[in-house]
């Protein structure tokens, strides 16, 4: 706290340069209230200066103009349109393809520009949608409608988009709510946010079924484009795609695109994780990571892209291990304890402190029933491995069992 006499020689400009004074006037700091009130009372000359300085400060910042949300979005889409395209297609300078593109665009002009919606959205369109909300701070499942309306859903809800554009929401216990088609000239996407500890599923307009893991989000349209079905995912999801040879189905993620005609597969693409993967159960898919060549995979294969060394690989796997989470079973085959704990942390929305066991190379095999609560799971883990756990207010601390 400053001395009573500190401000004696202050004039209006000096007051305005004084951080304590400014913070007090702007009500960001109330701890000096008494101090400044006393100053005003005891020193008439200073009181007038304080009054003038506060008046200037408060009234100058009165009326800042601002852009509406719509204007901002319009500007953003202009920027995206006019900037250089990161398009591998054009980079290869493949004349045949260029001619094909030209022919397609001619045909589109012919059909009519008004109805044309770009079939392949750029990544930044999706990013500008997903980053308007913070997954980390969400506690409930949220569905953002194209008209910016926001709906909170209970755990394990199902969102179904009907042919006519209506939305049917079904809770875990079968309660149904139907929302009529929402009109919006501006944004044609739904945005589903699933925080840690929750899960949900979506039935898209073409009947394709998507189950999303905790900590994931998906952006999808109310109706698909005539030539292409496209959704955007951050996180992990299991897809069962309705077959339609004329209309490829594309799952876009930050680092890779997965294109299919009709299959089921598991996709793992958490923006913060060092790897992304696709595990194919049935059918065929084509994966393209960051302007690379397409990679085709067949059932029981897993495509993996490693961000750290930028390498991609395909290996044979047991698909059950990758999709059993759908039935609330976590299948472990010599899995590191720390990565199991990461998985559980996402599933149950709890935070672990496993520093004490990070160095010990503990690997687990078997199946965990995720329908049980986290306490039961940890009891099982401490039975089959040399660890014990202690719950504190904010965290669960994992320790090695003392050796007897």
């Amino acid at each position, binding site marked *: 706290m400053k001395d009573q006499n500190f401000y004696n020689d202050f004039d*209006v*400009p000096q007051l*305005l340069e004084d951080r304590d004074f400014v913070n007090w006037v702007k009500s960001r700091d109330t701890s000096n209230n008494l101090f400044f009130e006393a100053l005003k009372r005891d020193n008439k000359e200073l009181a007038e200066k304080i009054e*003038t300085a506060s*008046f*200037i*400060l408060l*009234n*100058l*910042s*009165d*009326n*800042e*103009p*601002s*852009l509406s949300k719509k*204007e*901002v979005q319009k*500007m*953003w889409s*202009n*920027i995206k349109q*006019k*900037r*250089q395209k990161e398009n591998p297609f054009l980079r290869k300078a493949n004349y045949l393809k260029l001619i094909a593109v030209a022919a397609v665009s001619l045909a589109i002009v012919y059909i009519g520009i008004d109805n044309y919606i770009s079939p392949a959205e750029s*990544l*930044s369109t999706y*990013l*500008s949608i997903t*980053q*308007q909300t*913070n997954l*980390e*701070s969400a506690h409930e499942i949220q569905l953002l409608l194209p008209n910016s309306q926001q709906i909170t859903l209970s755990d394990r809800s199902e969102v179904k988009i009907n042919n006519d554009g209506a939305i049917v929401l079904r809770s875990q216990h079968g309660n149904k709510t139907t929302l009529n088609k929402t009109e919006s000239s501006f944004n044609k996407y739904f945005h589903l946010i699933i925080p840690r500890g929750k899960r949900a599923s979506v039935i898209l307009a073409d009947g394709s079924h998507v189950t999303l893991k905790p900590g994931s989000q998906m952006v999808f349209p109310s109706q698909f484009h005539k030539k292409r079905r496209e959704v955007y995912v951050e996180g992990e999801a299991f897809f069962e795609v309705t077959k339609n040879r004329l209309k490829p189905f594309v799952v876009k993620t*930050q680092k890779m695109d997965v294109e299919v005609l009709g299959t089921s597969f598991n996709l793992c693409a958490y*923006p913060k994780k060092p790897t992304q993967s696709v595990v194919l159960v049935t059918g065929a898919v084509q994966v393209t990571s960051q302007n690379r060549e397409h990679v085709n995979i067949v059932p029981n294969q897993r495509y993996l892209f490693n961000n750290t060394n930028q390498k991609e690989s395909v290996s044979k796997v047991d698909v059950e291990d990758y999709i059993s989470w759908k039935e609330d079973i976590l299948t472990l085959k010599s899995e590191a304890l720390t990565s199991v704990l990461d998985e559980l942390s996402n599933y149950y929305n709890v*935070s672990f402190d496993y520093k004490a066991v990070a160095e010990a190379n503990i690997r687990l095999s078997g199946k965990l029933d995720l329908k049980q609560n986290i306490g039961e799971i940890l009891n099982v883990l401490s039975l089959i491995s040399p660890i014990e756990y202690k719950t504190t207010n904010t965290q669960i601390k994992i320790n090695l069992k003392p050796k007897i």
Partner: protein
Amino acid sequence: MPIVKNDSQWWDSFRNGDEKAFSWIFNNYVQSLYQYGIRFVADEDLVKDSIQELFIKLYNNRSNLSATDNIQLYLFRALKNRLINNLSNKKDFISLSTSTLPFEVENSSDAELEDEEWSVTLRKLQLEKGMKNLTPRQREAIYLRYIKEMSIDEICTLLNLNQQSARNLIHRGIEKLRKELSLAIILLFLSFFIIH
């Protein structure tokens, strides 16, 4: 746990081609860029276009941009230069140099005036008049200092000044505003005199 990136990190990710960083920078600064830009030119579309051009150019040149730990300052500077360019390209503007670029601050909005005491209204009007009587550079410095809450160093960068001149500029501006405000008290006194 959410990881909070600082300005340098956002900027570096953007320079390395991270789409999310580009979009974050745009969304985070578009409003204050607009607010700053509109002070120079009352033409909303010109300001919006200039901001768009700025971001398109940043994106296209992202790998050649220099590093910064103060994105807002970087963008303000770039926008100001762009506005000067765009304005001097316009036929109906006669050559403008940085020092003559007008800087307007509109203040009181009429909607709010009605419920206020007359004395407050009068003082607000005087403050507005005071702002109008400042030089454009005084206005800009005061705007940046008290509305955008920038540091003296940041203001020096934007106005091409040294520390002392920036301080003097602000100091003299505030003194002028203060004179206008004390005039309001006299006017108020007079008005009482007439009414009673």
